């Protein structure tokens, strides 16, 4: 969880003056996204984690040379992309360290650029989910990432099912995501019910 939040401008200033808080900020906001990007290109989660970490180290090593936050981001993606391509070309020194490795073809530049766009947008979506109110964030993750049913979520969090549905709808709204399917319509009705805290556990099936 991020405790002290700094702005992108402050991150640049802190980075350039050698304050490691800047790296913490970058890690919080971009580590997962860089790992996502690298995993899409190389196919290996362990390699992806290494690449994300090494890109951050390279940014730190070049501190003092970034004139803007945009410059830092560019550099991160460039480092990650180059590291991915090196992996694919050399067949990976990492292959020896990590067991799971699928040999892949070098992707097209368009593919890479698409994945950069995806990673950058996902970075923000992920942060937005982290910033959801606690219960809502839990419901969202359980519903859409873990794939639990409304009943299972209601049981685990001791909420009523209609609270669960409400929270799902509101989370999607806050994140401005859409959901395909009728669930959405049903939830609209439930939006009229205000949430006022933990509800009594009404047994439902």
């Amino acid at each position, binding site marked *: 969880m991020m405790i002290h939040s700094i702005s992108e401008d402050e991150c640049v200033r802190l980075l*350039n003056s050698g304050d490691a808080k800047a790296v913490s900020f970058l890690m919080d906001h971009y*580590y997962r996204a860089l790992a*996502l990007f690298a995993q899409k290109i190389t196919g290996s989660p362990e390699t992806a984690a290494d690449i994300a970490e090494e890109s951050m180290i390279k940014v730190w*090593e070049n501190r003092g*040379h970034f004139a803007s936050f945009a410059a830092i981001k560019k550099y991160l993606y460039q480092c990650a992309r180059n590291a991915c391509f090196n992996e694919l070309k050399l067949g990976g020194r990492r292959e020896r360290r990590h067991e799971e490795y699928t040999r892949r073809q070098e992707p097209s530049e368009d593919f890479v*650029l698409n994945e*950069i766009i995806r990673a950058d947008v996902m970075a923000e979506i992920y942060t937005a989910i982290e910033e959801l109110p606690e219960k809502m964030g839990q419901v969202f*993750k359980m519903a859409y990432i873990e794939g639990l049913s409304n009943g299972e979520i209601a049981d685990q969090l001791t909420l009523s099912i209609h609270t669960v549905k409400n929270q799902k709808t509101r989370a999607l709204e806050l994140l401005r995501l859409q959901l395909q399917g009728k669930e959405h319509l049903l939830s609209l009705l439930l939006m009229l019910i205000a949430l006022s805290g933990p509800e009594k556990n009404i047994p439902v099936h």
Partner: protein
Amino acid sequence: MNEPQLERALRIASLIKAQRKGVELSAPETSELQQWRQENESHETLYQQLSDVQMIAADLEQMDSHDPEAAKLRLTRKITRPGKLHFMRWAAAAAILAAVAVTAVWLLQSPKPEMRPVTAQVIRDIQPGARKAYVTLGNGNRVVLDDVKAGEQVGNAVKTADGKLVYQSSASQAVTYNTVTVPRGGVPQFVELPDHSQVWVNTESSITYATAFTGTIRKVEMTGEVYFEVAKNGKPFVVQTRTDRIEVMGTHFNINSYSDEAAVKTTLLEGKVRVGNAVLAPNEQYANGKVVRIDAVAMQRVMAWKNGLFSYDKVDVQTLMRDLGRYYDMEVVFEGMPTRRTFEGEIGRSLSLKEVLDGLHFTELNYRLEKTASGNRIVMLPE
């Protein structure tokens, strides 16, 4: 993947992000996004995926499996304190990057002994921020910001934990004027004005403002170099420099009015300002009655100080030394002819003078540091 392609991709990403947050895109932004979506089926697919929760769920799951906290712990071990510093492109016309760092002072090589003051002592190094920013309150009292504890009040303002001075709007207080001054040798100071405008005051600069903007306009006087991010509140915001009056509504701009520079330069990043009889659009700069468009690279140079850097593109040694003299609070004297070579590169401002000059020394600038009765002095020696 070349740089323009990467920049375009990041631009598209920020347009998609803005749309997701419900921000309205401008006409050119909308058409840029449209064009990208239409030029390739994979682009449209990606666009649809990024707004559908079921489609992104797998990505979220993947992201969840990576933990930045564990990685941060590993990183802190790998990150060492600055020992080796990289100086990017400190290149002059015929520079050779020497591998030898020479100590900053040698006494016996001055070619013109009569120019050396009799009382000069040799000094080793100067750290930045030796002199401290201070506030002059309405009653004339001066408060040095460094002496104020975090959370303490300074007049109508509070000093925050990270050294910023933030004013609270308070209608009941009598209006007085405060001045924030960063002396020569001080590091930039951040101030949040009573209307929530954000201001960065550079070295050897000051701003004077009312502690409550009660009139029909918000007026600020300044000297030196200040960067503004003006909050929109319906009242015009007016900045008075030694020669110009700049009027804005809500906007981000930098004004350089150092008296030892040739002209007062107003550079606009965002928004709109009126200065003289010109109205500036973003990425335009006004000086001496003329408006020029500046590119992204030049803009970075203007804003470098706020981002903690010195940033130069073909600067002459006099300009370079004038900036260093101001920041490290030292007098600059040239012995013999100053070199005609130009310098370019970026260097962090948290470095000590010696570290900066060691970088310079690679480009064969010779100098001597001395202490005089009135302070520090750097003597630039001829090549």
